[in-house]
């Protein structure tokens, strides 16, 4: 797709180019740009993570990713939105998923960014295989008995 696309989703085997993605969000009416980067953490469930790999069902991941961006565009007053999810081997600190949205004002930008990352995590057919320092490895969330608890959503604004 050309850089003029308003909504842009990709599944990528190579490092995410944050600067190039951010340029996709620029538009004369876009006074607010909000981005989220999900990066590989060095620990999970109390264990030291040494490496991880993402696997995707790419055909459906692209279809679902484009749907999520279209939903965000219909719910919020967006100018542009882009999202890329990595596949393949990643190291601690690497960017695994990037979401960026632009809007006239910050309220829509923050809300849409949050919507996209939450839906991506819940719906995109992507799987994470984590390897730990103790030699073990798992497909995250795929245990028969103990599904991972979702991260709690923070309450409303607190001004202290």
């Amino acid at each position, binding site marked *: 797709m050309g850089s003029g696309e308003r909504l842009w989703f990709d599944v990528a085997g190579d490092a995410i180019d944050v600067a190039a993605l951010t340029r996709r969000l620029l538009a004369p009416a876009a006074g607010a740009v909000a981005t989220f980067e999900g990066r590989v953490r060095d620990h999970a469930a109390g264990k030291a993570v040494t490496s991880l790999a993402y*696997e995707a069902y790419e055909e459906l991941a692209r279809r679902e990713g484009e749907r999520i961006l279209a939903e965000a565009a219909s719910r919020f007053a967006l100018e542009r939105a882009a999202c890329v999810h990595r596949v393949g081997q990643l190291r601690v600190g690497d960017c*695994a998923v990037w979401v960026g949205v632009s809007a006239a004002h910050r309220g829509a930008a923050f809300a849409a960014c949050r919507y996209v990352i939450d839906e991506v995590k819940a719906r995109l*057919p992507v799987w994470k295989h984590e390897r730990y320092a103790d030699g073990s490895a798992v*497909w995250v969330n*795929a245990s028969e008995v103990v599904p991972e608890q979702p991260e709690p959503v923070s309450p409303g604004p607190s001004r202290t």
Partner: protein
Amino acid sequence: MAAGKRVTVEYFAVLREQRAVASETVATSARTARDLYEELRQRHGFALEAGRLRVAVNGDFAPWERELADGDRLVFIPPVAGG
């Protein structure tokens, strides 16, 4: 009609590991996507119950009760973990 059909099944993540292949063609008389998963689960010992999975038919999400047709492409989708 209980006539057999041939469908393609593609596996990802934990299911690919448990099945030890990435895809296969299956001859089956299963009526629905759910019936096929139960048949394959029994045959290959997949640990996850259907309730933990979703299913895609021909490239998009489908209800478990979707009736299978000859030549369908199925993907059983384990719990996702993107981001």
